[in-house]
């Protein structure tokens, strides 16, 4: 079962916009995803992360730390996550894992509280993943107990990011496929056993007229109609 590589999800996250202050002058750039610029030294603007990292590595911009990526905001988020044991809280950013990794690797000189932020992001990830794993376990439990939940078996994945869902995708889908194959087989055998029993009871209880008596009963009913 193919699973998306984390770097592919990071590639999608690189399209997110981030605030930078350029050190060079350039006119407006017309790109497929949008127009960016003009670039003037000291004038902040928003550009995609892939462009920001490229310009940062060439020393042409200063990358600003995103507002959600501070020690205070992340601590608050972690406390909210720990307060609720079952449901995940809406993330501060949908690509929080990917963006934090990219910025902490490439833009450390422009960031503050790097060690604390690294640890907080890791802790938040671990808490959310454990909640997701527990939810998956509960879904698989309803499958092997052959129960139909109150909501009719429709499950929603709320507040989890693409990276988190991708992390459990392999095991969860394999478990679901396995349960579908086995439960289909069980249903088929049970239905055949029922049909077999119904066939037996029908033959034993009904009095089926045979031969000429059956014909005469049929013609009588025709005449009455």
């Amino acid at each position, binding site marked *: 079962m193919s699973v998306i590589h*984390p*770097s592919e999800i990071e590639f999608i996250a690189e399209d997110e916009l981030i605030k930078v202050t350029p050190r060079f002058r350039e006119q407006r750039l017309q790109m497929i995803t949008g127009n960016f610029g003009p670039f003037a030294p000291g004038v902040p603007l928003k550009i995609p992360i892939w462009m920001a990292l490229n310009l940062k590595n060439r020393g042409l911009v200063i990358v600003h730390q995103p507002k959600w990526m501070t020690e205070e905001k992340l601590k608050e988020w972690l406390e909210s996550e720990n307060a609720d044991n079952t449901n995940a809280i809406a993330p501060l950013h949908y690509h929080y894992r990917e963006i934090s990794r990219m910025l902490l690797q490439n833009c450390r000189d422009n960031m503050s509280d790097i060690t604390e932020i690294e640890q907080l992001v890791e802790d938040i990830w671990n808490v959310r993943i454990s909640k997701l794993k527990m939810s998956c376990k509960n879904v698989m439990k309803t499958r*092997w107990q052959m129960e139909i939940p109150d909501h009719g078996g429709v499950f929603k994945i709320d507040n989890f990011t693409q990276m988190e869902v991708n992390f459990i995708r*392999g*095991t969860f889908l394999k478990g679901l496929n396995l349960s579908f194959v*086995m439960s289909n087989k069980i249903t088929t055998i049970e239905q055949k056993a029922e049909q077999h029993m119904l066939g037996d009871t029908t033959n034993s209880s009904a009095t089926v007229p045979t031969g000429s008596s059956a014909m005469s009963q049929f013609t009588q009913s025709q005449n009455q109609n």
Partner: protein
Amino acid sequence: MDLSMVDRSPGNYLDLEDIVMSDSKIPCRSRFHLKNIDLHSVPEEFDEGKKIELPLWLAESMTEFVRHEFPKEYTTRFQSILRADPEIVNLHRHEPKYFAKGLKLSSEKLDFPDPRDTVIMLETLLEAASRRMLWIAMQASASKINQSKVECKLDDGEKVHYSQLIAQQEEYKEWKTGRTGIIKESKDRFKSI
């Protein structure tokens, strides 16, 4: 082994895993007095009710002549052990393709005394497979664990899944530490001595 291929005839005709699995034997009892049966290169006679071990692929075709019985790994006694604690059972020792064979035993071509036994067996397999899958995922994500000790207990399908999960964990760790872009030596390269 892909379980969806087990019962998909003729799609599984050329599947090597299915061929190997179908060669495993199941106990059968002859319905009649059978003469000149050439199972072991010597013509033999089987009285009615005599126990014979036949490979699965042959047992399926001989439904007219034999009644089938569950192998000991699929009997009520073993299933109760599996229900109690599926994670500790060494499935590889009992049957290398345990779940695939269990699914194959539920085939319509086999004639077991009571279809309810087949349903109970499948329900046990479903629960055991699901619980083991969750356990395997937990073992794969644990940092300090002896992988060979885990692998020796798994059946062939679970081994494939376990190695995929290990590879996925490695991929994630490499991505986290930014080592995804590093060019590495291919595993297929043979080193000459």
